[in-house]
């Protein structure tokens, strides 16, 4: 039985050899945080990391991913939403509908790993994901916050009220 190493676990799956990684993650392994948007590597909603590098999982056959390669999905980026990119996203209320945001966050996390202090040009080049709601300016600002900028510099003045259970 074929195997994938996903979010720190070696997992068995059953699928035809040409099944894209996206659909093995979503339908065989139950990880639906990674989204289908186009199926042709245009939109980036399906972005995951393989050994830390961002890839578009909708066009990559799962069988081409070796069990020795480490796949990370949005569910595995942090156990509790505490990755600096996730925290910056929440601080600036980046998502609107949210559907593209898993891919955005994975692309941003990979960028920051590669370039901890990205320039605007770096962000332009790395963040080619499509967002139809139009969150781009907050995405840019949140990447800078995740890179160390004070959230106040985004000028949004968002009031965060700690939720009480």
């Amino acid at each position: 039985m074929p195997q994938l190493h996903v979010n720190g676990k070696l997992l068995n799956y059953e699928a035809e050899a040409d099944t894209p990684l996206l659909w093995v993650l979503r339908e065989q392994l139950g990880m639906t945080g990674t989204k289908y948007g186009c199926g042709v590597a245009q939109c980036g909603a399906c972005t995951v990391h393989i050994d830390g590098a961002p890839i578009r999982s909708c066009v990559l056959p799962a069988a081409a991913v070796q069990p020795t390669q480490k796949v990370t999905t949005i569910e595995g980026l942090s156990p509790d939403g505490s990755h600096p990119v996730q925290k910056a996203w929440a601080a600036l209320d980046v998502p609107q509908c949210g559907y593209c945001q898993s891919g955005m966050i994975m692309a941003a996390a990979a960028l920051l790993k590669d370039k901890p202090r990205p320039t605007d040009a770096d962000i332009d080049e790395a963040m080619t994901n499509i967002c139809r709601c139009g969150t781009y300016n907050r995405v840019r600002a949140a990447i800078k916050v995740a890179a160390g900028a004070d959230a106040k510099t985004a000028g949004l003045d968002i009031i965060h009220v700690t939720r009480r259970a």
Partner: protein
Amino acid sequence: MSKLYQEAFEAQAAGSAGIAPATGISRRRFIGSAAAAGSLVVGFPLSAQAQQAATMPPEINAWVVVQPDERVIIRIARSEMGQGTLTGLAQMVAEELECDWARVTTEYPTPGQNLARNRIWGNFSTGGSRGIRESQDYVRKGGAAARIMLVQAAAQGWGVPAAECRVAAGVITHPGSGRRTTYGQMAAAAGKLPVPANPPLKDPKDWKLVGARLARLDTVEKTTGALVYGADLKLPGMLNAAIRDCPVFGGKVRSFDAAAIATRPGVRKVVKVGDSAVAVVADTWWRAKTALDALPIDWDLGPHAGVQQAQIDATLKAGLDAEQAAVGNRNGDARDAIAKAARKVEAVYSYPFQNHATMEPMNATAVWTPERCEVWTPTQNGESALAATAAAAGLPPAKCDVYKLPLGGGFGRRGMADWVTQVVQIARAMPGTPVKLMWTREEDMQHGRYHPVTQCKLTAALDERGEVTGLHMRISGQSILAAVFPQNIRNGLDPVVFQGLNAGGGEAMIGYSFPNLLVDHAMRNPHVPPGFWRGVNLNQNALYLECFLDEIAHATKQDPLALRRKLMARHPKHLAVLDAVAERAGWGRPAPDVKGMKVYRGLSQTHGFGSYVAACAEVSVTAGGELMIHRIVAATDCGHAVNPQQIEAQIEGSFVYGLGAALFQACTVKDGAIEQKNFDTYPCLKLAHMPKVESIVMPSGGFWGGVGEPTIAVAAPAVLNAIFAATGKRIRDLPLSRHSLKA
């Protein structure tokens, strides 16, 4: 249908604190938190009435539930699709309720419950930027009534007049006696009191939560992948369906060879869906989709198989000079003014078909039995989804229900229910088995409900001094209402066609006074189905008028702002937003160069969805013809601003949507079908294209305007006017990618 579904569904939804997709979920959470650990409530989904009677937590009224642990559940009838309505509506209820915002959660009542309770939650439809403005009065009254009932319950218990009690953050006190209680403790007693019919509302100057830049309630689960969209739903025993509808609108399935794919892995059934589509049902969606790709289908392409885009364009062009047209706005005699004009300016503009292209393709899950049908789907209109469910199920609506799931984008597309009809038709072929239908991007591109296609001929009459003495705007083209609500067409007139050009009405009014004005419409409806596309008809109408005013300014050697100001003396609210952007942008002073390039500005303003909006764009065009949009200044007067940081998000998003459309997007017809199939041929605006946006939210009070759509309409004309300033090139048809800006 039953326990299994409930548990699987709730396990998936666990962690979704912000949006509870259906009442069943928070009911379970409620009882789960109140009762001993491990006890589970079963029976979801029950009929709406049974849920009400048996297991819903005691409500104060239809809008507010307070749990013994002080958690406040605010019921939200409208759909959240990214626009922030869920948080904004909760703010308004909480404002009047005087509860603790930190304890507020939300839930969607189902359309079936609404039906069973005589539409106590009103309209579920979420479009036209109406989510807040259309329900603000009754949701605030819902919060106010609940507060009055909670206070009354405490006062009765204490034997003191309610008027002597005070409330703050969910705590009721009686200063005279020092007594204190909480909403959670009073909820059960308050729920038994009569609901005050018309409770007084706060003066806006006393608002604390309304107007605050509060964080959204639904953000965190969108950063962890935990939020369960329609596409993500999994029910026990569920099968997956992929569908192909006849690529030509109006075509039919003649036959298909199910045997050819019968032995493919996982394939369970091939189902003809209506007259025009075929679905493959398999254990996984990927297997269904790949089997469908391999299925031989013989199409009867129908009567429109020979239609080409050029024919549609020619039909619309003929309408520009047609004798018959429906009049939308008229004063004086524009034709006479034009006949007598010392000079005329004339131009023809056009606007293409465009697809909504929500990031999440259309999808729904259904279970059908002869007794009951239930659907889970992202929808902008739960009630129309329920009606579609009942019709396709062959059951009365009372034996059906729809559970709204978070929407991966809506933009008007999810106000329709065509995919709901499809999924129920498929589920009917497999009684008792849950089936999830998801469209491919290609299916979504080719079976949209497209932005209507129109052309516009504008003719201005000028006197010897160059003053405008008359304007005729002849719109030719598609009517959304004729396709979607034909009963609303009166004497051949579609009133929505004139959005932004109306003389009055408060919804979408022209911001200029012309001595003689005629705006009329020659309806020409191609076979491509139109729909409400975010911004609707305001998009092209604002583009036509705002670009043409720039043409008049250029032809008469006037400053575009000065010309507008002359025509806007009787439209102070339109003028106020225009002046605000002009001032902030520095209109009248040269813009500083960016990276050695000269920067040019363009203006536009309009009124739509009840709000006044304006924009100033700053662009450069390189010698090679590359457009760079550096900065946008945008102003919105929406009357009352419920959550300014979310209004700013909507303004920014509107530029993404509007500029993506203007720069890149057109759907074109070839052999009766839409040619574009995916984002490679239907490009979207990306982060690297995105200008800086400075938003000016300037609510002037006294009215409620929408914010999700109006700004889209000023995006394209502001940029096109700036492009003209930079290059002298006047772009009159979209998208811009069809034109060269090379010097």
